[in-house]
């Protein structure tokens, strides 16, 4: 779960990190009121779940209240990489002497924590990593040891943060690590961590990804969840407890298990179609879950056919089949459905589905045939697909 900048800064503030005084604003009037309290000059910053805000004109310096109003009007409603700006963070402007970079995340290779610190902040850290990797000082932290002040001190020395007070930097890094650990973050990134012209360190941006699995010990996650960026389809699926990701195509996909759902999306693309979504209904394919999934796809106007891909492990074929029939009874499905049902008791499941088959509900013998059939029902192979129009997949699938 990704946090907005201001949410990340609020998290940081609760760990004693130095952030600029600021306030949230939803309208130009609120932005002006906030700037009045804080004192100009201020920076008006778009709060969206994406990077590149500065380049898109989503971060503006305002010298006086009139400028604050103008900036707020310009930024609100701005579309930044598909994210429309609905909220602003207004904060006191900082006089910057130098910009640094710091982050903590999991190094999956070593299964330890990885800290990265660089005197070259304020720019794309991937460029720094590619062009001058030696400019990034890395530290491996064993999770059961934690992060000691001595290690932090050596780290600061090796990164060489010109002008920064070493003890102050150590305090900031230790507090950031605590926010990473105690806040149950997957990732914490500050770019830039700035040195002000009067010699203090200040956290000027906050990129925080929280671990949804830790929700049970963080009641505050519920509030963050409400601002998570989801389109209408994703919101509907999320409210029904389904794992859903919206995609651009026209074949709706329902599968049990994330891997099988991903494989289904791959398969659709492989035979020349394009999936409208990824939807994992998890282990139980009962009528309740199946209805919810079908309703979500049914409300998506781009869906032209539905590909249900179920592999029964413990889940039994007859339960899946009954679930599909019950769901079709409850929901009036606009698109034709193609079912692939394999695994435990699949023959029993087929026997239940067979009398109901029509051009609205079809069975396919395996995953590949089902994907082909569904792509055919959705209008066929798309010209710009990797498999191309002449793959023959369509004809074969329709047999």
């Amino acid at each position, binding site marked *: 779960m990704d946090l907005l900048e201001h949410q990340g800064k609020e998290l940081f503030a609760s760990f004693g990190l130095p952030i600029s005084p600021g306030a949230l604003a939803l309208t130009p009037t609120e932005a002006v009121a906030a700037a009045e309290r804080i004192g100009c000059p201020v920076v008006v910053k778009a709060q969206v779940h994406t990077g590149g805000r500065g380049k898109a004109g989503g971060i503006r310096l305002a010298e006086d209240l009139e400028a604050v109003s103008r900036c707020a009007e310009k930024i609100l409603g701005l579309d930044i990489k598909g994210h429309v700006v609905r909220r602003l963070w207004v904060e006191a402007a900082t006089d910057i002497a130098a910009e640094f970079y710091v982050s903590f995340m999991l190094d999956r290779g070593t299964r330890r924590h990885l800290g990265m610190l660089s005197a070259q902040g304020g720019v794309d850290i991937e460029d720094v990593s590619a062009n001058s990797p030696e400019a990034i000082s890395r530290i491996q932290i064993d999770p059961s040891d934690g992060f000691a002040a001595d290690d932090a001190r050596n780290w600061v020395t090796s990164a060489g943060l010109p002008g920064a007070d070493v003890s102050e930097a150590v305090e900031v890094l230790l507090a950031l690590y605590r926010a990473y650990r105690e806040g149950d973050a997957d990732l914490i990134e500050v770019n830039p961590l700035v040195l002000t012209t009067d010699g203090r360190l200040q956290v000027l941006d906050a990129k925080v990804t929280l671990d949804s699995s830790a929700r049970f010990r963080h009641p505050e996650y519920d509030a963050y969840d409400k601002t998570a960026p989801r389109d209408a389809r994703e919101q509907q699926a999320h409210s029904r407890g389904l794992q859903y990701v919206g995609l651009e195509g026209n074949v709706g996909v329902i599968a049990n298990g994330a891997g*099988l759902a991903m494989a289904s999306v791959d398969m659709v693309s492989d035979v020349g179609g394009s999936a409208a979504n*990824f939807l994992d209904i998890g282990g139980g394919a009962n009528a309740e879950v199946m209805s919810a999934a079908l309703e979500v796809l049914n409300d998506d106007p781009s869906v032209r056919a539905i590909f249900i891909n179920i592999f029964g*492990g413990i889940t039994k074929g007859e339960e899946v089949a009954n679930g599909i029939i019950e769901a079709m009874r409850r929901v009036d499905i606009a698109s034709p459905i193609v079912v692939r049902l394999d695994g435990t008791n699949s023959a029993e499941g087929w026997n239940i589905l067979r009398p109901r088959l029509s051009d609205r509900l079809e069975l396919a013998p395996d995953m590949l045939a089902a994907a082909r059939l569904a792509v055919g029902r959705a209008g066929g192979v798309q010209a710009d697909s990797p498999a191309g129009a002449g793959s023959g997949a369509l004809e074969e699938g329709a047999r």
Partner: protein
Amino acid sequence: MSIWVDEETRVVYQGLTGSAGRYYGLLNRDYGTKVVAGVTPGKAGADVDGIPVYGSVAAALAEIDANASCVFVPATFVVKAVLEAAEAGISFIVVITEGVPMHDEAILFSRLRREFPGVRMLGPNCPGIISPGKCNIGITAGHIAKPGGPVGIVSRSGTLTYQALYELKEKGIGCTTCVGIGGDPVPGTNFIDTLAAFEADDETEAVMLIGEIGGSAEEEAAEFIAAEMSKPVVAYVAGLTAPPGKKMGHAGAIVSGGKGTAAAKVAAFEAAGVTIGRNPTEAGELMAELVATL
């Protein structure tokens, strides 16, 4: 032969009295797995369909002999349950539970590596392990696997693991052991651990690997295969068509910034001489062709 579990494996089920623990524990016993005890704090003296329940793993081991455990306890208790099993002397711990926080997993892995170097943990958030015909620990439906060999399977995804077993069985190909390592960021056992075990196993002649987008486990596996493995590997990587920056269900399946994409993983495997299937069915077909030449 098989790796890590066989007909001699004697398993304690931590959380046997819970609904999932009971359901799968009894299914595993029906399959032929030696399910020797259950452990639930506060429920010592109870039994689940004749399987004795103890209050702790140590208490169970005082009375019965066991060398593996299967953990079905809620996510909040996983760290405690695994360390309890390790301290009691269990050497192979399978954690089925999903939703364990990343930091808990990282600390658990670190402590096991230091304090219990002889202990292997599989999971968390994995379907378990099955040596067909011998031992099934976890939530795999045993009948979809054909006993024997010559193929070993290792997978990051649950349902795709079943799919792989099923594809092979349909083609009359047996499996020595099928290992689901799970899709979480800090797996107790990774691809490399499993590939090394298959490489050392006499009966395993080829390996089917199922990866997915996110992280760098597949790239590291590819390096290992190139450097250390003599046995052929067929792989499928799920998420070939996933858009960058989207999370698709698994905590581990995150694509960002060009790293961890399916394309990068496929390229790494191909460079290591691994045969790539574009989808699970094709991977099964390629494995069948390969097995026919062995």
